[in-house]
């Protein structure tokens, strides 16, 4: 999956949050008006990279590293050959049997248990807009005062709504300095 498209603060992440956290959504059916529709899907994401989009309060995701301790290509091939052989010779039916009879202990409607991978992922999650602001500041080290206008390219590239821009700037470490007249306009300066 294109993880880069699923960064914190992106529209796609918001959509995934919304579909994971609610059972119904409003959308328009073909040839019909917008209506409420059921979204019973539960999401599993399998990736080569840790998630870079989790928000600090996000308890929707159960995050865990998936790795096999078996080293060496031949040993791995043998491991999976044996496992697949088991799956194909009644293993799938046994798994279905397990799922159908297992006594469930966890409360499926409670928050997912926290894992060390999740804590690490939350700490390292960076909003791409904030990252772009930081990049701009690094490239313009000599600039000490900025206005929102300096980041017009960033807003455009990330589709940042005007009412969230000052928060993104604050998250990038900029502090509000005051308002001052530049040319014929009053600007907020950071």
């Amino acid at each position: 999956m294109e993880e880069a498209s699923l960064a914190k603060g992106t529209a796609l992440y918001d959509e995934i949050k919304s579909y994971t956290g609610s059972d119904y959504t409003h959308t328009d059916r073909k040839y019909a008006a917008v209506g409420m529709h059921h979204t019973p899907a539960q999401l599993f994401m399998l990736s080569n990279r840790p998630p870079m989009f989790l928000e600090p309060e996000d308890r929707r995701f159960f995050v865990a590293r998936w790795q096999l301790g078996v080293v060496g290509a031949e040993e791995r091939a043998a491991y999976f050959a044996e496992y697949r052989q088991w799956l194909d010779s009644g293993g799938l039916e046994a798994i279905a049997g397990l799922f159908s009879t297992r006594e469930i202990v966890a409360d499926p409607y409670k928050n997912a248990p926290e894992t060390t991978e999740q804590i690490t992922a939350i700490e390292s999650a960076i909003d791409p807009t904030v990252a772009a602001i930081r990049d701009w500041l690094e490239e313009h080290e000599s600039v000490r005062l900025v206005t929102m206008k300096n980041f017009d390219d960033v807003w455009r590239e990330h589709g940042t709504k005007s009412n969230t821009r000052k928060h993104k700037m604050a998250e990038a470490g900029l502090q509000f300095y005051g308002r001052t007249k530049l040319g014929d306009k009053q600007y907020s300066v950071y």
Partner: protein
Amino acid sequence: MTNEMPENHPNNVGNLLAARFMVEKYSGSQRSFYDRETGQQGLLPMHLIGVAIALGVEDLEEAKKIIRLQYFLPLSPAIVYRPNKPDIVHEKGLNSMNLWRPSEVVPEPTKSAQRFIDHLQDVLGADDGRVDYLLDMLSYRYQNQTAPKPHIAFYFFGEQGGAGKSTFAETLTKVFGSTAVRTTNTVAGIKKRVCRFMESNFSRCGGGIFSEGNGIVR
């Protein structure tokens, strides 16, 4: 020519056709049919004629007449997802196509699934309850396919390839059934699946995940 149904054949061709085919739409006076057996849509009377002949009608004109006079149930354009219900569901007087189909894998609780548990412990670790949590959540979905979904998403990652993530996805697809699990490897695929599998055909939608029991993005 009379408008009376030809005498019933020994194998009751008209009723057999009516049990298998449903009218999905009219274009002018032409009907098109949905085949419950093969899942084909857009079939025309000429296709049903072929089936009638295969069922034993010897005369072409008689086959045409059977199809013309036989009553076929109408199929609503809505597609629904109703686990554990038949291929056509009757709701509020309408017959709708059910996207869900039973899995081909039949549960065998007497067989040991320890190899699967061992494999999950190999990849997730055996010591802190992760495997138990995953098994609980999967079992809950398996046992309660019509219950509201838990608001939990799973994210498994491993830098190293060849650790069995794809095998895991394939396993769930087979166990839950191919209509209950959808996989995609693109962002566009996520949106497409929401559009396709919510409850009908959507001309556009805001994106999201899937609609069935379990979705897998890899």
